[in-house]
């Protein structure tokens, strides 16, 4: 036992971090999925999209969700980020380890860390852009996509859903609520479907005539 370990021994903190990691992670996955499904109403037409956006604003759902998301986004970064190998030596070990082991789940995690870093930047930009352009409307969004944000979203959508899919899978695995292999397959199918829907939505935004 070392002095620092003795004095900072408070296993409750670790415990609360773990619970927070679970809650914030699950919340973000649910939010992300609803978010892309709502945005994808553009496939049904700009009127449906606008009606939904206005409906949400009428009940201040947009604002409530947005504030929660910002909190969850950064809480998740802090609690889940505590596992990221940050030291050069650790990164070297993990990289060598993953290459030696050729183990799919370990690679999935390595890429999850990398996508997480990318999402931290891209997601923050996305949140900023959307918040400074409220209220949300089909025309405004279409204009943004057509003005060059297309590539931004082509990157952000698969990155975030890959990250979310692996995260969800690992939470299920860690808590052991369901058998591992079926959960993995189901999550892969759902993730691919969502990415496909998101791509169609992007295409729909590109097709809109913006005045």
């Amino acid at each position, binding site marked *: 036992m070392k002095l620092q370990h003795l004095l900072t021994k408070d*296993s*409750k903190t*670790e*415990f*609360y*971090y*773990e*619970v927070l990691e679970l809650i914030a992670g699950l919340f973000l996955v649910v939010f992300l999925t609803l978010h892309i499904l709502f945005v994808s109403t553009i496939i049904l037409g700009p009127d449906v999209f606008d009606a939904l956006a206005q409906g949400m604003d009428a009940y201040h759902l947009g604002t409530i969700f947005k504030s929660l998301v910002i909190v969850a986004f950064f809480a998740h970064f802090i609690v889940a980020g505590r*596992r990221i*190998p940050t030291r050069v030596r*650790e990164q070297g*070990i*993990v990289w060598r*380890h*993953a*290459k*030696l*082991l*050729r*183990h799919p*789940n*370990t690679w999935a*995690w390595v890429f999850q860390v990398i996508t997480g870093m990318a999402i931290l930047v891209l997601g923050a930009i996305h949140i900023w852009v959307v918040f400074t352009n409220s209220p949300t409307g089909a025309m405004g969004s279409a204009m943004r996509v057509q003005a060059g944000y297309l590539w931004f979203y082509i990157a952000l959508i698969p990155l975030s859903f890959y990250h979310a899919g692996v995260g969800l899978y*690992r*939470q299920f*695995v*860690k*808590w*052991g*609520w369901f058998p*591992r292999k079926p959960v993995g397959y189901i999550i892969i199918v759902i993730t691919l479907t969502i990415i496909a829907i998101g791509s169609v939505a992007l295409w729909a935004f590109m097709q809109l005539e913006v005045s």
Partner: protein
Amino acid sequence: MSNRTLTFNIFRFDPYRPEVAPYMQSFSVEELDGMTVFVALNKIRETEDTAIKFDFVCRASICGSCAMLINGRPQLACKTLTRNLPKKITLMPLPVFKLIGDLSVDTGAWFRHLSLKTKSWIHTDKAFDPQVLEERMDNQTALDIYEAERCIECGCCIASCATANIMEDFWGAAGINRVARFMIDPRDGRSGKEYFEVIGSEQGAFGCMGLMACDDLCPMELPLQMQLAFVRRKMLGLGFKV
């Protein structure tokens, strides 16, 4: 069976001669029917280099001492048949554990430390009376305990765990499995609070990131995912109470 000539690339290093940098040395071995990596290693030691270091005792996947990285993955040398491997075989010692030399590592000290840290013995206040019959345990509990006890302490789960590779004091699947074994034992009198103190920490249940390399690579095929999840869920319940 057409016998192949196998090429073994073996990691060589002697910690007592640190001036000689680690290197890979290659040996050719004629494959025999039913040959294991362990048999091949003995052949190399007999015919090529008597100084090469590697561990074995039982050669029957019981003692757990022959674990090493075979083509990068932790496996038991005595259980791995060469016919399931390509012609080129790379052997390295397990990571995480202290390197004794070449393919030999000290898993013993690591597991002894683990036993002390997790206090792996039955804690009870009952005085032992040799005259009285032992209390009966229901069969399922006995089987569950036995399932966890099948661990041979080979260290494959520790070596394959990314967390254990970067966090020196993480107990890994073997450690958490060990605690699970005592948690289900009705003879163990430890309270929830005591267990939480033992394993409700980053070194224990919460350090695991759910990468499942342990579950995929344990040569005894222990249900490690379920053991890890069992302890984690127990800790969730206890964490709010204690």
